[in-house]
């Protein structure tokens, strides 16, 4: 089955340039194409006309690397629940439909070109404290610390975050709380993560604020759009961790 679609795509030459939505007509799109394959086909057509192809980020195309990042018809990663843009297939759209594609928008994610944004703020939040300090060679035997299965499973649920930034793009405040809380939860739920838990929560939140992400007003749009189903229960946990840490710590990191 094939369809004809109209695309409205955000085109912006670079970070400084002004952008705008540009319309393209694309015919004979197979329903079995992935959304990004549809973009490939469009780009091939643009190249054959000597026009600049649309820049967009992508790599694994199987929903795990977190690179793809399109805002499709007003939703981060498009209409399908629990899926990334690269896992979206054209059969989710209909013949004659107009599809609007924009980059993830947030103060913390400046546009670099077309649909590519700069998400390095997430890396800096991790660098501020999203780790367990265990230099290579210091570890004891892996089975020396038993971890309750339920705790290990919940840690894994939180650790499944792919760092794509859909939570930020979906949030009207552009808050990064779901991302930060998933990391804090992953590490706080494991005994190995306990020694640094206070320092970690404070440092990560401080960096998140410094990067210009907004505050959380509990609208839960992040959870609804998260391709990995990361739960807002993590945000509650982060709030507890942060509060505990702030009460005890005499000195907030700058």
């Amino acid at each position: 089955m094939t369809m004809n679609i109209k695309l409205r795509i955000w085109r912006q030459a670079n970070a400084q340039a002004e952008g705008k939505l540009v319309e393209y007509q694309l015919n004979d799109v197979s329903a079995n194409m992935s959304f990004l394959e549809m973009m490939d086909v469009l780009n091939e057509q643009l190249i054959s006309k000597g026009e600049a192809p649309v820049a967009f980020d992508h790599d694994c195309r199987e929903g795990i690397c977190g690179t793809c990042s399109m805002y499709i018809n007003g939703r981060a990663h498009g209409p399908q629940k629990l899926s990334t843009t690269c896992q979206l297939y054209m059969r989710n759209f209909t013949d004659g439909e107009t599809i609007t594609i924009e980059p993830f928008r947030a103060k913390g994610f400046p546009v670099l070109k077309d649909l590519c944004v700069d998400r390095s703020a997430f890396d800096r939040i991790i660098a501020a404290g999203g780790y367990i300090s265990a230099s290579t060679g210091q570890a004891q035997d892996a089975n020396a610390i038993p971890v309750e299965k339920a705790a290990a499973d919940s840690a894994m649920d939180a650790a499944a975050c792919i760092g794509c930034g859909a939570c930020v793009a979906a949030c009207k405040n552009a808050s990064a709380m779901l991302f930060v809380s998933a990391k804090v939860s992953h590490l706080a739920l494991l005994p190995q993560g306990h020694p640094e838990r206070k320092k970690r929560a404070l440092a990560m939140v401080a960096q998140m604020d410094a990067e210009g992400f907004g505050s959380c007003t509990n609208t839960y749009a992040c959870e609804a759009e998260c391709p990995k189903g990361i739960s807002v229960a993590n945000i509650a946990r982060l709030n507890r961790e942060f509060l505990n840490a702030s009460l005890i710590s005499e000195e907030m990191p700058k």
Partner: protein
Amino acid sequence: MALDSKIPAGDLQQKWEDYKNHVKLVNPSNKRKLEIIVVGTGLAGSSAAATLAELGYKVKAFCYQDSPRRAHSIAAQGGINAAKNYKNDGDSVYRLFYDTIKGGDFRAREANVYRLAEVSVNIIDQCVAQGVPFAREYGGLLDNRSFGGAQVSRTFYARGQTGQQLLIGAYQALERQIGLGNVQMYSRHEMLDVVTIDGKARGIIARDLVTGKLERHFGHAVLLCTGGYGNVFFLSTNAMGCNVTAAWKAYKRGAYFGNPCYTQIHPTCIPVSGEYQSKLTLMSESLRNDGRVWVPKTQEDAKAIREGRKKPTDIAEDARDYYLERKYPSYGNLAPRDISSRAAKEACDDGRGVGESGLAVYLDFADAIKRLGKHVIEERYGNLFDMYSHITAEDPYSVPMRIYPAVHYTMGGLWVDYDLMTTVPGLYALGEANFSDHGANRLGASALMQGLADGYFVIPYTIGAYLSGEIFTKAIPTDHPAFVEAENHVQTTLNNLLSIQGTKSVDQYHKELGKIMWDYCGMARTAEGLTKARDMVRKLRAEFWQNVRVTGKADELNQDLEKAQRVADFMELGELMIVDALERNESCGGHFRVEFQEEGEAKRNDDTYAYVAAWEFKGIENNPVMHKEELKFEEVKLATRSYK
């Protein structure tokens, strides 16, 4: 130059211990003065960069993605092997070593593989300490699963996302060092050349992919951790950006390329659905525990299915050919990857393939569902079934899955010695980028093990052997003529690509190259086909440089140019793979030469070909020169792999 693998003397079991006891060290104050460039932040690169920075070296790390956490290692599903013997089922370092050598069809270096098995146990300890949430049992201890090519349960896993969790562990360790100022990270940067001065690697040329600017970076040593080159086939299970560029530039600067033709083709992937297909998705090997592989016995039935006149469920039991069970009764559907892939190809070549294209076979769960109930199958493979129906819009609970082999992993890569150093002093290769410990075929769950072994536990020791001799070398200013020459060289190549302004896109050329490689240097290779393919690749390459159209400019974010640059290197690599495949007149592991078989099975020739082929670059229009590293087997006896 004669190849020196620098394998330490002594008993196999003692080599690494002795090495560590005697290798030269670099004292802490000198480490601070030594700069190391790490290209790549997958499991190999992240673990190396973090560990070297912890030791006190000054590290610069590079990756082409927008974050180090997105390296292709993230996509690994199944698990990581380690000889922990937590199951008390008879595992040991020796068994892991032996399984790996045998799985590789006796084409790997014993000493490296033994070391790999030894450090495998430390990897699990390290990962747990970092907070990697491996699967656990109710008692709170670590769980294991089984993988192909082994009779013990030694695979550690984190749901179906083991690679993701291991990489996040290594990435967090790396970010910690970045936060501490010990590593300078360059994301969205692509290395486009190695700089050598007086025969030693002294730095790289990298392109900032956002601004397009070329940068010069000095290092006392350069580590290439840049992954595999399966994308030379265009379609593979690799991420879209995986490429050979870093390794290829190193080859052209004097590093030998080891066993380029050894490619792993994974039997269970979702088949191609149309011309627009951009990549292939792996369906885990574990499915073959319960799924039965079949095609119709007759070409008529297969044709009827392809034309939609019959459904698979219309084919009666006795009209089906469960060919793996028929040919390999003792292993059945769990025959190893190389063998299962070839059998699927044979069935389709025989006109009995299914799906619209005829390039698919069935993986059928009907029997398992009848025997165990749908809920058991759902519990075991639910996420994979979901993924499958997501992509194909078919329900694998009621209709058999369609699968076909796809390129998955490259065992070949830069030749390295025991220290992981290439033939260029100071230039190292780690992870999938080196010719590795997997011989002619890699076992499941062993690539993650090797990447982390190289980065966490091998290079931190072996690099001392070289850097201890470099403590008096001051940082070389990057206006040195060698840096200027390398940068000019890169700039010229990019300008050339942009100036051609031909009529065909980069992707069109990449697809054509991939098809030649798949048809002639894929699952079944012949001298005749390879000879023809070499010619075809040369012609295609010449045409590419005449007629490719690359849009945009060099000084901007330009994904078309990035791709063109990578495809230009694949065009050259493809020929070397063909030359290597042609030279190896035997069948072993992933390398199947149709002329060399016995009753349909691969026939190795240990008398003549028990060596690593290490190729030296002699100019792109000239024949490369092969150097042999003879493989000496002191511990294991060479035997035929039989799965009948």
